[in-house]
């Protein structure tokens, strides 16, 4: 979810429904579930208050989900992101690691296939595809986005989703209001995804929107632990706001140019390896050193 929630925050039905693009009914059900799990409590003045930090809540819900065989695909993705699995997996591996039934393992693989995360390989194996968050896939991901994201802004049908834009803006400004070196990269990544999804959704071109949303979905998967410096994160958030400003003033060309600049600055990678007297290497050496 593209909201910056913390323990003690009010869980406002309307905000949550807007953020998730659903009606209030499923949100009410979800809030009742959180209350039952001890992650939310009813507030005296009505509504609910978050009773734990979102990461802890995620973790508890994920454990329940895996236990119930519901979110096996998510567990596989997290383990893949943490490099706990091989590049190729099969049903037997999954049954052994997650203590699930054959049919649950099969369903999880089909879900991952539909997400574009795995591909069928020889025999009974499935191989993970390269993700935008992988070090080896990151530059390609930026190059892909450099082609499409400015174009999304320049698309004839581009119409900013103002409700979402207001949410993104307030989330971004709240982060920027925090003191120096106080927000972490996960908070930034959430805000970053919310902004870039907003641009994709607003493009007015269903094909552009769907391909960008799918790519951002892959970016959201665990594993991209590259870390950013506080200054650059703030600078990137400022760039988001600048792009929104240009769009709101109907300066779409400037917004598209600013998007290109933003992506180019973000794709910079610190040197892979450096040593006194040697030229610093930016890309990884090909293959592992063994």
């Amino acid at each position, binding site marked *: 979810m593209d909201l910056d929630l913390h323990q003690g925050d009010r869980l406002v039905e309307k905000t949550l429904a807007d953020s998730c693009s659903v009606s209030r009914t499923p949100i009410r059900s979800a809030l009742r579930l959180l209350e039952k799990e001890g992650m939310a409590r009813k507030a005296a003045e009505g509504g609910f208050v978050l009773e734990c930090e979102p990461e802890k809540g995620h973790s508890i819900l994920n454990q329940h989900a895996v236990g119930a065989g519901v979110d096996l695909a998510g567990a596989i993705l997290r383990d893949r992101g943490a490099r706990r699995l091989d590049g190729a997996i099969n049903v037997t591996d999954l049954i052994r690691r997650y203590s699930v039934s054959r049919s649950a393992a099969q369903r999880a693989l089909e879900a991952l296939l539909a997400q574009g995360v795995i591909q069928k390989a020889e025999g009974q194996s499935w191989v993970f595809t390269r993700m935008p968050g992988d070090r080896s896939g990151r530059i390609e991901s930026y190059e892909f986005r450099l082609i499409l994201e400015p174009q999304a802004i320049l698309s004839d049908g581009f119409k900013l989703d103002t409700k979402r834009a207001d949410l993104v803006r307030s989330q971004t400004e709240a982060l920027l209001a925090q003191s120096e070196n106080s927000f972490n990269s996960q908070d930034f990544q959430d805000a970053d995804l919310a902004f870039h999804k907003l641009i994709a959704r607003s493009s007015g071109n269903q094909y552009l929107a769907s391909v960008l949303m799918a790519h951002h979905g892959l970016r959201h998967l665990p594993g991209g632990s590259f870390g950013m410096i506080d200054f650059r994160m703030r600078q990137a958030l400022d760039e988001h706001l600048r792009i929104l400003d240009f769009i709101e003033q109907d300066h779409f060309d400037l917004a598209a140019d600013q998007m290109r600049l933003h992506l180019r600055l973000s794709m910079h990678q610190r040197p892979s390896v450096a*040593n*006194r*007297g040697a030229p610093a290497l930016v890309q990884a050496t090909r293959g592992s050193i063994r």
Partner: protein
Amino acid sequence: MMNRKEAPVIAFFPEASFGAALNCVGIAQELRAMGAHPVFLTHGGFGGVFADYGFDEFAVPVQSELTEEETQTYWQEFLSHHLPHFNMHPTDQLTTYVEPVWNAIVETAESVEQGLETALERINPDVVVLDNVIMFPAIVRSECPWVRVISCAETELPDNCLPPYLSGLPASDAAGCAAFRDQYLETLGPIHARYNKFRQDKGLELLPEGEFLETSPHQNLLLAPSIIRHDRDQVLDSGQFTFLEGCVRQEGPYRVPQMPRNNGPLVYVSFGSLGAMDVSFFESLFDVFKTLDMRFLINVGAQIDAYSRVPDNVHLQEWFPQPSVVEQCDLFIHHGGNNSFCEALYFGVPSLILPYCWDGHDNAQRAVETSVGLRLNRWDWTTEQLENAINQLLGDAEMKSRLAANSEVMQLRKSVQLAAQKILDCVNPNRI
């Protein structure tokens, strides 16, 4: 805050290694907060590192810049050639590793000279801060005050009472120190002669054998914290030399991730960007780590995509905001890089050092001598030794208490501010 127009320009020129680079970032952050205008002169490939912290950068052109492909090839060859050398005794590294690296350092000094001179003319800094192991004549010839940062182990600044630089020997081993010193001077003799010739051509004084960088007449900043400092034969002039208690930069917070096995003490492991290229070494560590009831955060650098089957109590990342991580951990396993060692001390965390080159050997030896950590040799460590060393350090209440007290001293010293002030003190108020 100083007026921007009046803000002194401080030009940092760190060597192309993360230790020096990030050490300078810490000082530059403080200078910026004090109203100065820090900028960075950068070696090829390091562009963007300092911009990410919000600093202006000036790339120093070299005479023959390698293409990306040539740089790739350089590193492939460097690693395949030198990885076996990292498992050698410091004495055996003199000809296999230290000599070629010094050769490369001198070549770098020669190749950037013209570009550095041009860059300094353009920037016209009030002070140059050199965090390196060699002098670049353009700095002296610019007639600008310059500050030397000694961010390697204290042994970088020789003294009769100190063991020789890069030896990993205790000072008490007089015969061993003498033999190492002789071999060092003999091995580096031709390179040193070449460098002195270069200096002479540029109008600089010759340096004594084995030395590639003079002390600054203006200010010299040494990172070595008092807890590991040596007694010197020649006491350093406190007006010209300032001992810092480390020099730790600010980074954003770090949230320790949940792991499938999420119990026990938190151990952080980092061997620097060069050490991270040795995937097999890390995999051999995994075999031990997975048997322990602890959580391990491991900096595996650019090789992260090479790993699979990572144990459930191990979390890999290609980069960490290291000070924020060390602050939360119970033990730091590292290569003896001076920044890592100082950060461990700054946050009161014991060090387990497995050095593989350069001053890592000296820091490992000093960690043992001063009881702030333990050392294992890369060439002969065993699973049992590693496990025992980890358990010993985690269970040593006396060391923990002493490190906590020292951490308080180091943090109270506010060394980054002190370093920044010493640099500002070098600004000539009458300079136009």
